[in-house]
């Protein structure tokens, strides 16, 4: 009886082992723990041209385009088994902009990138384009979050599960110099040679950074003198604060002795430079002023001549008068 029972026991154990083996070997049935052995997920590596991103992006400028390289492979407990079997299948990855700073716009092309399923990195390329259409503080940092989401692979069970990975790209806002000028009085003046023409100039900063304005007088004609403040620093009008300064241009015409009829065009060169980063300069602007000097210029010691002339004219009169008086006195004595 006991022997018979042992045989039955052995048969039951054998059947159990056999069925278990069959179950393991035949993967048609649902088996979550075993399915997980084959379940993979994508791994990404994200590369882009950092130099292009380091270059600040000027608001309202042309779109900046940055080539992106995405590397993808499948990872998991047994990626090689999966990759070996379904290597010809394409992993479809949607690449999109997940987040972007306000005032910035970006697109990424192509919107879908394809990777053959592999347990080693496969490369695909895309292009990120972005612009800024608002004025921001120069050199402030903006961010673009790029999202990579793959489609799930597998029909009855998941072989490569859907996963979303995000990558950040940051860039800085460029400096846009923008100055505005106005003349509260005039830009032409007619003066006498001894006078100084004074031109007040209003300078406003509409750039997106505190700006140092370098002022230089160029092409001064011979004999003329002109001076103006060499530089000044202006805050910006863009963010609500008024940034207006008044500078004076003084022009002195030639004062050589004689009659003058001089005319000169005084050219003032104004260059905006970022206060934060001096290497960022704007295009120079030129201001023109016409000064006309007309009249007689005396040497300055003409008064001495005048005094002498006066003396010379008065002296004979005085002498005559004295002689007459003397004559009268003489006649009076004779009588």
């Amino acid at each position, binding site marked *: 009886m006991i022997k018979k029972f042992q045989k039955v026991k052995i048969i039951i154990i054998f059947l159990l082992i056999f069925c278990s083996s069959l179950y393991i070997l035949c993967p048609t049935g649902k088996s979550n723990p075993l399915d997980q052995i084959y379940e993979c997920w994508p791994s990404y590596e994200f590369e882009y041209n950092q130099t292009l991103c380091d270059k600040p992006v000027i608001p309202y400028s042309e779109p900046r385009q940055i080539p992106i390289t995405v590397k993808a492979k499948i990872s998991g407990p047994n990626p090689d088994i999966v990759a070996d079997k379904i290597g010809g299948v394409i992993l479809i990855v949607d690449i999109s902009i997940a987040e972007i700073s306000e005032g910035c716009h970006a697109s990424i092309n192509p919107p879908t990138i394809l990777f053959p399923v592999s347990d080693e990195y496969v490369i695909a390329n895309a292009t990120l384009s972005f612009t800024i259409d608002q004025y921001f503080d120069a050199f402030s940092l903006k961010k673009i979050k790029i999202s990579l989401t793959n489609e799930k692979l597998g029909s009855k*069970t998941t072989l490569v599960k859907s996963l979303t990975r995000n990558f950040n790209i940051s860039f800085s806002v460029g400096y846009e110099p*923008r100055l505005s000028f106005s003349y509260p009085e005039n830009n032409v003046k007619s003066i006498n040679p001894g006078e100084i023409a004074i031109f007040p100039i209003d300078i406003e900063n509409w750039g997106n950074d505190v700006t140092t304005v370098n002022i230089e007088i160029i092409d001064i004609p011979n004999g003329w003198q002109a001076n103006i403040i060499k530089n000044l620093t202006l805050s910006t009008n863009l963010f609500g604060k008024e940034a207006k300064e008044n500078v004076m241009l003084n022009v002195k015409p030639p004062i050589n002795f004689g009659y003058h009829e001089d005319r000169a065009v005084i050219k003032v060169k104004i260059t905006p430079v970022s206060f934060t980063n001096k290497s960022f300069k704007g295009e120079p602007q030129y201001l023109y002023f016409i000064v006309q000097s007309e009249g007689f210029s005396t040497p300055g010691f003409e008064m001495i001549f005048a005094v002498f002339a006066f003396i010379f004219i008065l002296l004979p009169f005085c002498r005559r008068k004295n002689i007459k008086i003397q004559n009268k006195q003489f006649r009076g004595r004779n009588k």
Partner: protein
Amino acid sequence: MKKLVVIILLIILILPSLSLNALSKEENNTVLSNSDEPTNDGIIKNLLRLRFNIGSFPGCRYFVQQLFPPVPIQAYPEAISLNYYNKTYFEIGGKNENGTEWEKLVKLAMGYSWGWMTRLTRFSFEVVPPENSSMDVWNIEFYPPSIEMQANRENMEWFGAETPLKTNVSIRLKSNIDPSIVTQDVVLKINIMREEVIDLLRIAKGIPEYAKKTSEQYEEYIKKEHELGFTNPYWSKPFNVVYGSTFLRAVLLIWNLNAPKEPWVDSTVEILIKVKKYHLAKIDSPISPVEIEPNQVKSIPVTITNMGSHIDTYNFRLKCDDENIIVTPPPALTLKPGEEGQALVGVAASRRFYSADDLTPIYIEAYSVEDPENIINQTIALKTSGIYTAGSTIFNSVIVVITIVVILFLFIYLSKKYKQKPRKIKEKKTATSYIKSIPSGIKKSSNKITESFKKYKKEKPIEPQKEEIIQEPQIPIPEEKMIPPPVETKIDADKYMKEQAIQRALNQQEKQRKKLKR
């Protein structure tokens, strides 16, 4: 007995794994670099691999089949810059891996392996309205608006199959009715809509005629599928042919019973549209000509209004036909949209002696510093009139006064000179004749002369000389042609001369007396 059980178990565990592993290697057609490397996997790994390979058979748990690989569709170029009211073009479509050629439409329509199932496959394009912009301002057109393919089961001469998978898009941006609303940069989304007319009857009939190995077109089918990039055409495998002819067509038929009748979104393309600033300005210059005198300097105010879409900086260029006139441009002016600013044009008139209302145009060119090619023109008419002389007004006035005085003096002098000339001649003649006519007795006796003079004086007093001069004729009469004066005048003159002579004689007499007294 125990040993037998153990052996059986080992055989069960090891043998199938080895055989199936070998089978899986044979079927492996991936491009992985490590596929040729020898594997040192353990038993468990091999078992797992065996299990996965078994599960990868059609209908099994790990079966994955991509009937046709996707074709990524995108915009070319990736981003565009758009000017207001300007038509800008870009393309939407799918290119091959190298990006050199457009893919054929048949590839997107499931290739020659599966495309036959649909009578018509059509792709059309639809713009997704941007979130921050109204569609009223966008005018987007597609050329062609849709691309389609008509397939059949018998052969591969399908209408539209070879058509490049692309469309040209023209885009134009209008300004908003409300000028304060400015269209900013936008990421425009375009949906590629797919529409299929499924032919269930074809599916029920089984695999296409050209895909049967017995068919003459089979080679062409394989070739065309390879050209499309399908390395492994579906009907090239005998199993698939059998499977498709039997079981699969039933599955496909059931599957497609509920196929969508309406177009659906196949993919979405994004394109970054950079809306360029709309640079426009209006310059208001003086309507009537600006008057200026020669050698005068003047500022001419011009008003500039920013009619563009954004804050803008305008710069100026000036041109003048007359090289002698100096013109200086106004400085750069930054204006907000709709803002007005005043710019001063400096003018120094020419130093021409005389200008009689000479009209000279001054051409103003204003341009945005961001778009120097877009120029706004305006003209100022400059009217120069007057006389220019070197020197100041006082200086010139003094000179003019001096000149006038000199001329006046000269005139008076000359006129006097001409007046005195005939009288002197007349005087000489009368005096000499009178002296000759004086009796010699008068000279000797001064007393007698004095008495006669006194008598004469009592009878007629001596008239002043001035009146006599006024009475004389203004125009001197030449000596030769002199007409003798009228009788009365002659007598008066003679009398006068006589008196003069008497006076002179009396004076001499007086002098002699004084001498005698001394």
